[in-house]
């Protein structure tokens, strides 16, 4: 019972303050409404691509056409420098440098310059662009493969047409071989053995000489005459063998003629095959792209970072420091104001001869000092971890930290003067801080928000502060390059300083 009574009392105390009740109920509702409206999408919006090529070709135009969709906006730059610088200055999310006269045979790659310090966005963009390029690349790859396949088909047809010729040649060669064997056998079978026939003329002369000298009769030379007769018979035998050889020669000549014809036919077939092969070869030679890598990925890309390579900690450092500044600044300032307002001494402060702005200034400087001490601690730890020398911090960073801290402190002071109770001020401070955090690129990239919300979120002090700090710490940008965003920061400081002053004037008499 007591428990319920205590809880009931707490509720009553809460709803007695209309602003508290309103902030408690509407704070989370507004937050959820804003966040759900903003992040209820998985797409990227309003990605700006800077493009440069010394000479645009059909292929580069076609790739740009592919990129130019609702999601991406392509802006052609005058120079490569301005394109790359545009990424550093957040004019473009990506800078695409196309090689001069880019074509499918080019060995050069398209270079995409991205800002790797935007670690939660860069890979989404790379994937997104890669998928767009991949579509074109697939088209080209398909065309190249089609050429290859057509050539193969043609070769295949030719081969089909000529595929019987080698068989025919083989059978003819077999036939020739058999004929040749037969011829060889015939030639082998020729009997060329012959008894020495002797020299009949010399023999006759000798016989005659002898018979003349001796005056012998013919019987005396009977033996000799027998021998001569035998020789003669041998010659006649040789003549018959020669006739047989002549016959074989005749046959062989005929065979050779046949072989010659067959060889002629084979030659024709071989020439035909040669012709087909030449045709296939010329067709294959006519294929422009034969490199497998080129056929698989006709468009090669290269990703380069505009920021110097560093650790993720270095890249997230600007966001980290802004989170610290925002939460510290808003909470410290609002709490100190509420503490002061609820202090018994508040009234006496009012009646002293002290100008109002002095109280505001002192609160501001107090909170600024604390926030700057926190920043200094974080910086020293960070520099120690990353082993970065202190003198490498650009002086502009210090100016930015001062300006950014001032905005959040003034917002905190405004909240402090706006609300009466500490709990209401705390809820308001949490709500405002969380909204600023959600509508920055810290949790999800701003590019995931619809364009209209992106345009508003760009004026979020958190976004401006983080962007400026990153541009100075990562890219070492000069004041002149940051002048627009710096002027917005200064305008915020002036606005919240005025609002805080007015709110103090209103609340001082209301709350006392």
């Amino acid at each position, binding site marked *: 019972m007591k428990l319920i009574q205590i809880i009931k009392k707490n509720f009553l105390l809460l709803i007695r303050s209309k602003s508290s009740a309103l902030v408690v109920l509407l704070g989370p509702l507004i937050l959820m409404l804003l966040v759900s409206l903003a992040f209820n999408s998985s797409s990227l919006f309003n990605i700006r691509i800077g493009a440069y090529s010394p000479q645009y070709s059909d292929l580069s135009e076609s790739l740009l056409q592919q990129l130019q969709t609702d999601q991406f906006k392509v802006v052609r730059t005058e120079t490569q420098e301005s394109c790359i610088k545009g990424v550093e200055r957040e004019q473009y999310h990506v800078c695409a440098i196309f090689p001069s006269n880019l074509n499918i045979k080019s060995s050069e790659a398209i270079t995409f310059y991205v800002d790797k310090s935007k670690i939660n966005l860069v890979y989404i963009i790379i994937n997104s662009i890669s998928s767009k390029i991949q579509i074109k690349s697939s088209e080209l790859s398909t065309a190249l493969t089609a050429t290859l396949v057509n050539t193969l088909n043609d070769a295949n047809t030719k081969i089909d047409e000529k595929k019987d010729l080698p068989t025919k040649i083989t059978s003819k060669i077999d036939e020739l071989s058999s004929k040749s064997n037969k011829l060889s056998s015939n030639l082998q079978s020729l009997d060329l053995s012959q008894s020495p026939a002797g020299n009949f003329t010399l023999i006759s002369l000798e016989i005659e000489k002898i018979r003349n000298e001796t005056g012998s009769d013919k019987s005396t030379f009977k033996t000799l005459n027998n021998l001569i007769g035998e020789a003669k018979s041998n010659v006649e035998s040789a003549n018959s063998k020669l006739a047989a050889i002549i016959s074989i020669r005749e046959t062989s000549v005929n065979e050779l003629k046949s072989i010659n014809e067959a060889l002629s036919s084979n030659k024709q077939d071989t020439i035909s095959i040669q012709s087909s092969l030449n045709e296939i070869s010329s067709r294959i030679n006519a294929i422009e792209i034969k490199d497998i890598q080129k056929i698989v990925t006709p468009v090669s890309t290269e990703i380069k970072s505009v920021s110097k390579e560093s650790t993720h900690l270095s890249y997230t450092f600007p966001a980290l420091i802004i989170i610290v500044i925002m939460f510290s600044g808003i909470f410290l300032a609002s709490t100190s104001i509420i503490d002061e307002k609820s*202090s*018994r*001494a*508040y*009234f*006496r*402060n*009012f*009646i*002293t*001869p*002290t100008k109002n702005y002095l109280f505001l200034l002192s609160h501001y400087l107090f909170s600024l000092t604390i926030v700057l001490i926190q920043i200094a601690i974080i910086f020293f730890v960070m520099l120690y971890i990353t082993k970065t020398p202190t003198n490498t911090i650009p002086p502009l960073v210090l100016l930015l930290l001062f300006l950014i801290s001032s905005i959040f402190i003034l917002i905190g002071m405004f909240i402090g003067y706006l609300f009466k109770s500490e709990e209401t001020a705390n809820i308001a401070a949490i709500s405002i801080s969380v909204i600023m955090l959600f509508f920055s690129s810290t949790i999800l990239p701003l590019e995931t928000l619809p364009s209209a919300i992106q345009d508003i979120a760009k004026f979020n002090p958190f976004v401006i502060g983080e962007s400026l700090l990153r541009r100075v710490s990562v890219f070492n940008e000069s004041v002149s390059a940051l002048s627009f965003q710096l002027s917005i920061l200064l305008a915020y400081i002036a606005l919240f300083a005025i609002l805080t002053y007015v709110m103090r004037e209103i609340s001082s*008499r209301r709350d*006392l």
Partner: protein
Amino acid sequence: MPQPPFIEIQHLRKSFKEKRVLEEINLNVQYQDIFGIIGKSGSGKTTLLNILIGFLKPDNGHIVFQSRDIEKDMENVSQQFGFTAQDGSFYPKLSVRENLEYFGSLYNIKKNELKEKIPRMLKSFGLEDSENTLASKLSIGMQKRLDIACGIIHDPKVLLLDEPTENLDPPLRREILTLLHEINKKKNVTIIITSHLLDEVELICNKVAILHKNTILASGTINDVKEKYSKNLEIHLETYSRRYDAIIKELKSKKDVIDISIQGNKLVCYTSKPENVLDFILGLIKKYNEKLMDIDINKPSLNEVFESLTREIKQEQKPAKK
């Protein structure tokens, strides 16, 4: 030749939205006065002080301080006026010295001057032993002293105190009133006090204004107010039985009796003709066989004047309502 008023409040009016808080206030405070503004809670006392120190602006009328309109001379008013609020107005988490140094600097006192001044103040306010004690750790009486010390760190010519003895026990009240008296006499500070504790106002103030229902009913020196606004005397009666019902019944029918009340064990009868009423009361004691313990005739207290005046207002308003 009469001196011009140190502070002159002329035709002052103030409303919050529709609610009228102060109506045609006219008051004069002289240099070194201890001026009491008395009235019930919600009568507009604090609003009047807030207008005096320039924290609130009146809807109508002027406050002239040393012949200058304070609205046109706020810088001077801030420097010349000191103030202590009902709840105390210092930083509990600062030490006594730190509080004095802080408020001293807000009143444009130079560091060197503060260095010399603070020990003197600590001594005169009996805070020298608590110099480095946190204000929250001080006793209620010491906190009140510190609050007043913070209110006069800049040596103001006028010190405004809103219910300075509220929530204090009687010894502490006396202590604070003595302190204020000393400040008035030794530092020549004109003091304006608001209070609903009429006894202490009567004790310390030389002048008084009765604020009731947003307007001043009476103002002047205490004796003047008493003389002017109370034509009655008080007969205080105490009987052994302390049963006054029958006597009251009889007294109510008596023409000369203005009012009757019981204060503690005594019956208090207000009358403009005390001799007649006294005889009548003595007759009643005899009639009802009461034993008389004490009876006397007194001049009216500030409280009676206040009661009398507010009663008159109430009675005047009754027929008007009809």
